[in-house]
């Protein structure tokens, strides 16, 4: 399984802090994003950044291993 985390405004729009997506061979970060964006379009309207295993990811073609932790995040507003 792939654990997907949500925070702040994205978590609020999804109504959950985390979801699980089934891992399949060759699955990429973009596939997870596409799958969830279709289910939660309002939440993904504000998604600007993605992370895999706690690191920023810019290349959405990143292949994901089983048990990966990914996050789809809105623009940050700390400080």
């Amino acid at each position, binding site marked *: 399984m792939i654990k997907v*985390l949500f925070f702040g405004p994205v*978590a609020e729009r999804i109504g959950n802090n985390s979801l699980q997506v089934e891992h399949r061979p060759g699955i990429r970060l973009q596939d997870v994003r596409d799958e969830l964006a279709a289910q939660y379009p309002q939440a993904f309207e504000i998604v600007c950044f993605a992370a895999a295993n706690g690191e920023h990811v810019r290349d959405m073609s990143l292949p994901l291993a089983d048990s990966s932790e990914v*996050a789809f995040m809105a623009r940050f*507003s700390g*400080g």
Partner: protein
Amino acid sequence: MKDAVRIQQEDFSQDEEIRLLQASSKRMGGIATFLGCARDFSEGREVSEITFDAYGSMALSELNRLRSDAIEKYGLLDARIVHRIGTVKGGENIVFIAAGAEHRVAALEACRWMIDELKQRVPIWKKEITPQGDAWVTPHP
């Protein structure tokens, strides 16, 4: 000894952070600090408190990387960053950044760079609680 980079619910002491920074090197000739506070008024509305959500483990590792990058980029002797999460009331402290260098220019520039980078790189989100309702803050450029 408190870590140089922390994310915590409780308030912090600027004096203590500066004392710890200063104790790290006697070559330090300049210390620049930034203190971010919670405003009680924003976008024309009263704000009673602010709540913060964070991707805790990633935020801490990004803050540590930010500190290391600043030390390397500006040749700092040391730097400290503390960010609060949870609930912060109007007028209270949110974030403290301190940069120590041999001379003032590096300290001042590094301090400014760290708070600007923090806003771009560190996964923390703030929500303003107002009498009219709650709203996640849309970042300013």
